């Protein structure tokens, strides 16, 4: 399991949280319980299984929704 912190552009609409939350949770290999979308700091924190998915896939799922990923950090849990 790896732990990722993804910094997004400033989030301003509350419904984006729900969108990002659902989009990320629906990815295979992402630990659903760990997904946290932080509205004020505009970050997504989650744990994922590097055997099943990659950080790029998670980033793509978010950019596909129209939110820019500024930077992401991946660390061993």
């Amino acid at each position, binding site marked *: 399991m790896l732990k990722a912190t993804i910094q997004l552009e*400033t989030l*301003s*609409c*509350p*419904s984006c949280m*729900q*969108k990002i939350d*659902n*989009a990320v949770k*629906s990815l295979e290999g992402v630990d659903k319980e760990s997904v*946290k979308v*932080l*509205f*004020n*700091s505009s*970050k997504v924190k989650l744990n994922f299984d590097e055997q099943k998915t990659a950080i790029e896939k998670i980033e793509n799922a978010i*950019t*596909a*929704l*129209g939110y820019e990923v500024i930077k992401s*950090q991946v660390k061993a849990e």
Partner: protein
Amino acid sequence: MNPESNKGIDTQEGDAMVQRYILSKKNQITLINGVLIILAFISKIGFENIVVFNGALIIASLLGVAPIAIQAYQALKVKVVSIDVLVTIAVLGAFLINNYEESAIVTFLFLFGAYLEQRTLNQTRSAIKELTEMAPESALKQKENGEFAEVEVDEVDIGDILLVKTGAKVPVDGTVLTGEGHVNEASITGESVPVSKKKGSQVYAGTILENGTIQIVADRVGEDTTFGKIIELVEEAQDSKSEAERFIDRFSKYYTPAVLVFATLVWLVSQDIELAITILVLGCPGALVIGVPVSNVAGIGNGARNGVLLKGSEVIQSFSKVDVIAFDKTGTLTVGNPKVADTKIYTTNVDEVLGYLASMESESDHPLAKAVVEYIGDTKLSTVENTDVVKGGGIVAYVDGHRVAVGNVALIEKENVHLDEKARADIAGFEQKGNSLVLTAVDGELKVLMGIRDQIRPGVKENLQKLKALGVKRLIILSGDNQGTVDLVARELGLNEAYGNMLPEDKSAFVAELQAKGKIVAFVGDGVNDSPSLALADIGIAMGGGTDVALETSDIVLMNSDFSRLPHALGLTKATALNMLQNIVIAVGVVLVLLASVFLSEWMNMSIGMLAHEASILVVILNGMRLLGYKLR
């Protein structure tokens, strides 16, 4: 790449590109949209030209609905019925019944509202952003050839040797290897008086080297540094949610789909498209979801600026309702640096006895021993042998062949030293003044009596008064010191109750007892030896000089151990809790009034509904923003 086989992916990616392009031009679209609406009304009112009027509005509607529809589509793809979905359907509905005026104005208000929200939200978050922007970004790291090169701070590992020049930020927590300088540690402690650093000193990430040049070895990096922990704490805090907020979140998840279902039912029953789409717009939950987080981030941001770290919205809620505040004495109400205040000498051989005393006490770390050594100053030190430390009593040892006992009354009595009437009267007198006692006996005879007192922190009395004025019913002191001392401090400071002779476990038991009676209890301590009480209390408040323990075990940290920040913290949490309540009332109130008026009044329509919604969102954001400027009167 073979274009044939990848055609499907290409079009998909192409679509995504178009969508992103449209979304990125949202501000320009809003502007054109607004201009078209103005043109439409000029041509209608000024020239009575209905063709231009409708034409301009149709273009405005189509242009305006595009980004909203894209957002709606993206939401539906991940199975979310968002506000965008409601608005898109409403606009399409208005279009269907040829009401271009409504469809254009609604898209404009929605887009312009979103623009203003983003701008104002950035304001509410500015205080915390200021803090995170103090994080160091680069470091000068020593390469294998011995030269220093600039690298990103993420590339620094434990054990690396780094160079810090004048004016630069210390990149990580570390120890000074060579060089000297003064460091401004305001980002960690809140205290801006520069601290001198030389070989062996600890330096902290995020602090600024004001003069000199130092080389340091990295001890802790990234999120493990003290500054990293503070940032993480504040970042987590601004997004932490109380039970009530989690309820609102769950509620709003089902709320938007419910509005959609309700509007559909109304349409099916009444066959009135106009009414159905109006309900869609009026039902948007706008301010409800945003109201509480906005107050939260502004309140926590104000705290961060003023040396008060609040760990989230649950803490704000409970501290705002606090009934009892219990204080540790030493290091909290007092400076924590005891000094010898009174002495009585019962011998003519003063220098010799004080020499013995200093010799023994200089081997001890006890705060009272340090005060004694400091008081005696330079003197002849002798060898101390056969030292016996009596727990809770003092020390017995041999110095120059004499048996010397240093400690409290109990120890001296155990040593069978006779205390005459005069000595007993002195002891009683010293205790009454709030002294801790250190008695010295040489070969079974009392020679010296010292009274040691801690200084009360300046301004504590006024700050306690402010806490009372803010509505705290009971202020209690819990201390390990003797009852006489504790009573005296309590009287001097005007505290309600004082309990002495308490061990850490007695203190936490006391807190638990108050809680069992249904009181909301805050405990203020130095974060080191009071961790059980800090953890148990409803709100643990640490006087933290940026120590890890204080950050971890407490709910509120007063930076730089500054007691005067406590009333500010209480006032701020009360203001923030009230602000959250106001925002909930505004949000719910607006939705209820709008929904009621659609059935009860003639004048309600989609545009007015959208205007009211966007206005209410701005009102809650502006209301939250007031907290950034909060000051205790």
